[in-house]
């Protein structure tokens, strides 16, 4: 196995572009190192991106937060402005693994691992986060929900690296939240995860909303039909019931060791309801 620690993003993308298929990007390593323990896993090339300038920084601009691909999730929790702007995203990122894991793991890595159960991804999708991708042909930006294409699979082309996740500064009277279901209290993987981000109009009713579901399909998915149920409402009981029903209906989970189809569909609705209420309160809404 070859280990490279390039100092520029161009060198990193060039290494990956030239490598065989068993080449991997190393940021926090909390997924990669676990995989490397597996007898059937062989890596020919590991490209550590932590020495690339800017990768470990959260940069606040006039209209956004740019989270470098190697920023550990714990660091997000220490960024006051980010916590105030995107509490749901930060909370989701700090549900991953354990305290020790959070000191290493990254949201970009969580996204590229392409697990439908990734905790930070539904929150990022709800927040309309963008992934800034560096590749042999330059830089492109795509919506986070377009990165995963299936369990363990992404839309990234050979040689491409997500160099940053970009979160626009939230508008006034908006709020986000993420809730997941795990059978334990921590150190577990989401059986269902729901991210909700909403903004209120001058009357205090929901003006716009994004709902993202995790672990109930092959990828984290944006659920516009669920979002529609809340527009124009103040999250009255009927609206919440409609939201829950829409989330349950949109879920296409499987029976597996982590949960059943019925359980996941039902709990997707429950969590959506609860997350919407938190986001609503964060947006300054009142019923």
């Amino acid at each position, binding site marked *: 196995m070859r280990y490279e620690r390039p100092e520029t993003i161009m060198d990193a993308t060039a290494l990956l572009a030239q490598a065989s298929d068993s080449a991997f990007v190393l940021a926090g390593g909390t997924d990669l190192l676990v995989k490397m323990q597996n007898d059937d896993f062989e890596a020919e090339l590991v490209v550590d991106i932590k020495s690339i300038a800017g990768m470990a920084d959260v940069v606040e601009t006039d209209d956004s937060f740019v989270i470098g691909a190697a920023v550990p999730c714990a660091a997000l929790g220490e960024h006051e402005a980010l916590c105030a702007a995107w509490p749901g995203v930060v909370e989701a990122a700090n549900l991953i693994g354990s305290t020790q894991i959070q000191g290493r793991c990254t949201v970009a890595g969580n996204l590229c691992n392409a697990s439908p159960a990734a905790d930070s991804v539904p929150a990022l999708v709800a927040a309309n986060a963008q992934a800034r991708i560096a590749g042999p042909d330059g830089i492109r930006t795509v919506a986070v929900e377009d990165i995963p294409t299936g369990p363990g699979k992404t839309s990234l082309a050979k040689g491409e690296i997500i160099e940053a996740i970009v979160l626009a500064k939230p508008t006034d009277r908006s709020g986000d939240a993420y809730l997941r*279901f795990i059978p334990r209290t921590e150190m*577990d993987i989401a059986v269902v995860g729901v991210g909700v981000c909403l903004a209120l109009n001058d009357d205090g009713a929901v003006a716009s909303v994004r709902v993202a579901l995790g672990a109930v399909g092959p990828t984290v998915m944006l659920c516009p039909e669920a979002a529609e149920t809340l527009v124009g409402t103040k999250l009255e009981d009927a609206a919440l019931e409609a939201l829950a029903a829409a989330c349950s209906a949109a879920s296409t989970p499987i029976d597996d060791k982590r949960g059943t189809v019925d359980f996941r569909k039902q709990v997707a609705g429950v969590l959506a309801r609860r997350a919407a209420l938190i986001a609503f309160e964060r947006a300054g809404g009142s019923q």
Partner: protein
Amino acid sequence: MSFDAAYQSQKLKSVGTRPLRPDGVDKVTGRARYGADFNMPGQLVARVLRSPHAHARIVRMDTGAAEALKGVKAVVTAADLPDLTNGDAELFAVLDNCMARTKALYDGHAVAAVAAIDERTAKQALKLIEVEYEILPHVVDVDAAMVADAPILNDELFTGGVDPKPDTPSNVANRAEFGHGDVDAGFAEADFIVERSYKTEQTHQGYIEPHACVASCNPDGTAELWVCTQGHFVFRQNCADLLGLEVSKLRVTSSEIGGGFGGKTHVWAEPVALALSRKAGRPVKLVMSRDEVFRASGPTSATSIDVKIGAKADGKITAAMATLRYSSGPYPGMWAELGAMTSFACYDLENVKTVGFEVIVNRPKVAAYRAPSAPMAAFAVESAIDELAQKLGVNAVELRIKNAAREGTKSSYGPVYGPIGIGPTLEAAQSHPHMSAPLGKNQGRGMACGFWFNFGGQTCSDLNVNADGTVALAVGTVDVGGSRASLSLIAAEELGIDYKDVKAVVADTATLGYNDMTDGSRGTFSSSMATISAARNAIAIMRARAALTWDIPVEDVYWEDGHAKAAGTKYGNLSPLSVRDIAAESGNTGGPIAGHSELVADGAGVSFATHICDVEVDPETGATSIIRYTVIQDAGKAVHPSYVEGQYQGGAAQGIGWALNEEYIYGADGRLQNSGFLDYRIPVCSDLPMIDTQILEIPNPNHPYGVRGVGETSIVPPLAATANAVSNAVGVRMSHIPMSPPRILAALNAERD
């Protein structure tokens, strides 16, 4: 020297205190050496090839390419572990489990192993071993394995314990029945009857340290094994038997142990490591991965249990019956039998009958797990008792007190009880503040009782008084739960010296006589008895040395408060001699001073506990949180109360995990789906509240200090206590363990519909 083990009430100075454990600093600083921490010069790395199939005939195996790989020093298959078991079916099962012979009987069953110069080479070599399997139909469920057209695992297995002997093979290895009285007559007398079926899923002991060993076979026929085990003498015997070694030539040293809970009472990888070392002529280290630990070691039985209990309107139970089916993996076990024996052990019953069926399935060979088989039986019975109380409209604790076994009760499994703790634990529960604390919304309370036999067994120890007056204690029971601290307290107590002046070690098999393994909650019970005996033998020698020093008859020297003293007034001017004084002169008075002991520790004294559990259940998700938990258990005498409390809490924690989330999940292909701690969900710290404990001390008449084993009983009630709490919280009887959120939510949905 004969040893009187009878209980004598006395004031104790060291026993009952809470000093720091002698192995603590090494463990928290990482200096302690566990199974994988031992290395030898020239050591090879071993890896095991395991069956990916639940049930398959091994048609052909070719190890040639693996053997030819550079760096590979040995490849072994069943051919390298020839059958030396001489008709001993139990030992053959151990052999076949260590290395599959004609058939792979479960996903993870070892079929070959390699020893190579490094891990990478060993892994590569595994991929070069060609195995042709003929896949056979499999069965993993205990009930499915019993039906008439189930795939048969073993064509030569006919159900035992039935008359006449069957002439068709079956997956039911044995039927065992216990009880007394006439249950039919008892049920006819009953005003109320509850009857229900229960299921529990298979769980693993979940020890944090995987199995690990270093084996070294020498050309002269001697061999050494460094291993993480609960019983190095037993491992020595098993390995010697399986490899055809002389017992005296195999020296086994036990490492520190990162948890066993019964799972390290069985050999898995050790005979394979020895076979590899014998073939390679070099030391071999074999460390199992977590995946291998789950797939091929442990676990406990999955069960299916029917219970029927009848009672008069006043609460007196008139009859009780249970039918218990326990899976034992692919080889016969005696797990259902233990379940059948323990089912109703807490109660004083006129009419009781239990029947246990041992069922073989395509899952790993079942191993002991802390009070093996009792928790599942207690889950079923204590759930039924709870339901009976509700049906009768009486308080659950009062119903249990009314029917509790007591001294003189003929137990449901045969023997008549001596002084026992079930009544006192129930009375303590009744008056415990936990029992009357208010409950909030979506909360429920449950309680349950539990029983375990406890064991004593063969024990041998040495106590050496050093020239500086300190004491080295060598014991042969592996310290899994703090026994070195407890035994040091015992030695200090007997000799009248300070705890800090005693250093206890676990001796290897070459330096001490045979000891049974640390199971059956016997470690502190039996080794403390041997320690007391050894200390008393050392005192006899010290008295003789004092007599010699003083030149007076030994009969005039007595031992008191850690000193030899001259009896009577005629020696009034002789100042007492301390252990230190006598030890300092030992070179001039006859040489080293030591006390030895070998004994069979009888009368372990049965053990009882009562647990109280409060839960809160989220009715929308089925998620359960344990909000309060209390363990009340009889310890006989708590030698080191902190470790007794630790045993109570540890058993409760494991039982809660079993009750709520832990289970082996198999796919339709018979492969284990969750062979890791991510998806095999033992509780994490934040899942549990601080578990309250109350130690009762009802002296065991068969131990000088009244000690009873305390290690296992604490895992018996939690399944039932938690299930009763959840059932009471949600208003639906939960009869399937674990009560995972999907199961609870499904039960609630069914109730709502």
